[in-house]
């Protein structure tokens, strides 16, 4: 193979002498990608235990999942919490991003820093803090409580993504719109928002996933009929390896990928038909 003796970089080292490096890279990539994906075929196993590759294929564990009122209840709670979190965090984060970006005042940086702290503060601290506060406010085990905490965790993500989008957006377009007779609000809605919709859609999906995938806060403040899916999964994981969870995991992977794909297509700028 002539490829191996060709120089790989400016230092004239050949590909052949760097094969070990490529092997390491491939192995690390495999380490990153495969473990998550291997759950998918395993979830279609027909036997009592998880196998790879499954000796007989079946939808047994999906049926178990769908037939279980507890799992259904938890799934429903997680979906509601996720959607509500998205509906709260996306507008709040977008508004804050726009306000802080256009105001350009010194205090804005401080507020921005404060708004991103939820990513930095260890989640366990938020979990017990919120739990303690909710006990006083009687919000423990309520959907409102979960949504409040999860929206708080999602706001920084929306804020950062939308701010980044505004930074790369040509804001003079908004000025043009205003000179042409649009109020600030209309200029934003008619000109800026349609162009950053990809980022807003992405941030909305991530806000949903922040709630849908969140474990620690849910452990403390969700429970009873308002247990989230993650809480139920976590508790099941500590007991034994229930193959039902493989089915749920597969569904969760599917939901995440699907949502991100939707965000991509919703927000992607239309390609010109002819060039």
């Amino acid at each position, binding site marked *: 193979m002539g490829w191996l003796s060709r120089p790989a970089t*400016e*230092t004239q*080292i050949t590909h052949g002498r760097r094969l070990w*490096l490529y092997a*390491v*890279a491939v192995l*690390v*990539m495999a*380490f*990153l*990608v495969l*473990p*998550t994906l*291997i*759950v998918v075929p*395993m979830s279609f196993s027909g036997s009592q235990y*998880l196998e790879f590759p499954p000796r007989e294929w079946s939808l047994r564990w999906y049926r178990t999942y769908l037939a279980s009122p507890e799992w259904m209840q938890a799934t429903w709670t997680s979906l509601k919490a996720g959607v509500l979190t998205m509906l*709260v965090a996306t507008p709040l984060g977008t*508004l*804050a991003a*726009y*306000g*802080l970006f*256009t105001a350009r*005042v010194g205090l*804005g940086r401080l*507020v921005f820093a404060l*708004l*991103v*702290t*939820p990513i*930095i*503060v*260890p*989640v*366990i*601290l*938020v979990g*017990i*803090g*919120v739990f*303690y*506060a909710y006990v006083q406010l009687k919000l423990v085990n309520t959907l409102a409580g979960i949504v*409040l905490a999860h*929206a*708080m965790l999602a706001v920084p993500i929306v804020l950062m993504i939308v701010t980044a989008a505004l930074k790369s957006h040509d804001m003079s377009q908004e000025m043009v719109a205003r000179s042409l007779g649009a109020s600030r609000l209309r200029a934003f809605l008619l000109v800026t928002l349609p162009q950053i919709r990809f980022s807003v859609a992405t941030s909305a999906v*991530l806000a949903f996933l*922040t709630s849908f*995938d*969140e474990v*620690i806060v849910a*452990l403390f403040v969700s429970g009873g009929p308002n247990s989230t899916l*993650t809480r139920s*999964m*976590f508790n099941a*994981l*500590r007991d034994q390896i229930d193959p039902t969870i493989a089915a749920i*995991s597969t569904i969760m992977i599917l939901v*995440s*990928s699907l949502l991100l794909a939707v965000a991509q297509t919703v927000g992607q700028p239309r390609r010109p038909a002819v060039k």
Partner: protein
Amino acid sequence: MSERPNEAGLRRDALLERLALFGLGSPALLLVLVAMVLPVGWLFWLSFLGDDGTFSLEHYQRMLAEPSYRRTFATTFQVSFLTTAICILLGYPLAYVLAQLPQRIANLCMIGVLLPFWTSLLVRTYAWLVLLQRQGLINQWGIELGLWSEPLTLVHNLNGTLIGMVHIMLPFLILPVYASMRAIDRDFIKAAANLGAGPVAAFWKVFLPLSLPGLFGGALIVFILCLGFYVTPAVLGGGRVIMVSNRIATDIELFFNWGAASALGVVLLALTLLLLWGASRIVRLDRVLGAGH
């Protein structure tokens, strides 16, 4: 006409506009204040309350005195340090190869690197649990290939915790390292080669130093995020790996000891902020901070 016409009115307009724009951020600010700053502030307060309800440092004193707390902190640092070290060993070569690939192929590979970002932490932890158990795939294959004869204990201990955490933290290391490598001007390497540096010398003397800021920033972020881990040690550690977060949860769930839990939390937060402050002086944090943990 006055010397400064409309001055007062213009000043008021400017103030109002600023307030209005600022006001757009206030709902989000309110949310973060109510759902985070207040509760965490409350914990801060609790940590300084003794059992009799007066100001006291007893929770902090106990933390210093009791060996079990010291063990918890030692475990936390040990796990965080090992995770960071393994992430560097695995992540740096991958980022190096990715940075030299054509942009299109590299972008495609980045999807793989980012895949863990959009799959649930719990799903990934579960996957490792399945793979690493005694009858799991890894042991099965290891024995079939003759690598080892008896099933190894890969999970419910430090090994499992480390494997799971490295898997979660790797993207956080790879992203900044990759970005800093992409930014390195190829001409430096060419110049080094022209000046007679061999591949090894060119790497150690030129490329590595130039990629260090990204590596250092990424490693710090990984380390900081590791300090606050809860789910992975709880599930893959099987109760044998007790990090600060796990200890806090136990203090609350089993002993209802809010003072002790809060004090631990305050120390954890202080450590995090201290390291973050250090990191912020080296790298731009908004680039490396992504999803939660």
